């Protein structure tokens, strides 16, 4: 469960988020809104990448301000550009990287890495150089490298923006099948249909919040 309590955040001149409160318990949550409306900043609150100037964010009761490390272990994050996330030369090494300091023995690490790769269909690329993967495969790798650490919540900031139709569908299907709570920021209104709850941002304010049809309708009305 994620609780956002009256958060205001911004920089010298301007507030990016203003008085945002929300308690997120649903399984599938989407966040939509115009460019610059504050979606990414909102999403970054959940794992403490952004610590709000005012207000508080709690993940399963732990504040992102005082329990940064625990929160970060509980909340996985997938970014738009896979190239910003992939750090090791081969696929298997990159997936294993997140388990480094878990004190697992070699066999256990291998087992978990293989399981995670299989879940997204990358096991056949285990020893493949990561940079030679296609854009869609890279994004699957980024997702896999996060899932291997078994986060309780997964936050994705426009995970399919750079992908084609097939890869988009693939990533969305995998997200849909996860046991975890998923929060996804997106511009693709077609993809939020099956979600339990959709939040709409406008100029840093949470202006609508509800089932997909209502929320998307509100967003379309905003655009005019």
């Amino acid at each position, binding site marked *: 469960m994620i609780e956002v309590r009256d958060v205001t955040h911004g920089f010298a001149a301007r507030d990016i988020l203003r008085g945002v409160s929300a308690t997120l318990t649903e399984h599938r949550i989407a966040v939509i809104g115009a460019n610059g409306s504050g979606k990414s900043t909102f999403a970054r609150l959940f794992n403490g990448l952004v610590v709000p100037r005012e207000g508080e964010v709690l993940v399963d009761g732990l504040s992102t301000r005082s329990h940064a490390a625990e929160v970060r272990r509980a909340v996985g994050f997938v970014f738009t550009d896979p*190239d910003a996330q992939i750090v090791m*030369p081969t696929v298997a090494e990159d997936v294993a990287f997140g388990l480094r300091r878990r004190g697992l023995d070699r066999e256990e690490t291998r087992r978990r890495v293989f399981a995670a790769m299989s879940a997204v269909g990358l096991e056949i690329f285990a020893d493949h*150089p*990561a*940079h030679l993967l296609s*854009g869609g495969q890279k994004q699957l790798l980024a997702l896999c490298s996060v899932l291997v650490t078994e986060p309780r919540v997964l936050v994705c900031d426009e995970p399919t923006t*750079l992908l084609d139709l097939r890869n988009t569908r693939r990533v969305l299907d995998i997200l849909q099948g996860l046991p975890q709570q998923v929060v996804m920021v997106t511009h693709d209104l077609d993809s939020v249909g099956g979600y339990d709850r959709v939040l709409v941002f406008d100029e840093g304010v949470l202006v609508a919040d509800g089932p997909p049809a209502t929320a998307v309708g509100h967003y379309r009305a905003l655009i005019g």
Partner: protein
Amino acid sequence: MIRSRRLPAPDLARVATFAGLVAALSLPGQFYLFGSSVPVTLQTLGVMLCGLLLGARLGALAVLAYVAIGAAGVPVFAGGAAGLAPFAGPSAGYLVAFPIGAFVIGLIARPERGFHPARGFLAAVVGGIVVVYAVGVPVLAWRAGLDLSTALRTGAVIFLPGDLLKAVLATVVAAGVHRAYPALSRDDGRREAAATRT
């Protein structure tokens, strides 16, 4: 035909962007070791990467562009300093040496013919440490009124462990980048490679 030897657009873009990279590496952190009037910074790491990735000519131009925008007043020097003031202080020699260092690194490493880690490391040490100290230390002695041995101690010896570590890092990073971005040293493939990612 007398034509100016213009930098082609793709090279020009790399030069300018890598000047930005050196700046981004210089900004975080800067601290003074006891008794030295020169700060510890990551600038030499940037200089080494320029030489190891762009080669002698473009690497040197990138670092030169970095020094030039700093001199013109953009806050990109150690600790966010800028302008002509740093050129009047004890670190002036290092700043002047950076482009020469990048040039020497590129000459030794020859990244356009493929990257060899051992060679790259040697290049980083010679260009990024020896050359930089060779200009930096005498200027430090001159500007700070030190005798040469004190200047060597406070302007070179104390930085050596850190700078050697940066040379190792630069080599490892350059090797990784050469693998992750194959179009780096293949001129004809460069544009297309940029195009592969939307």
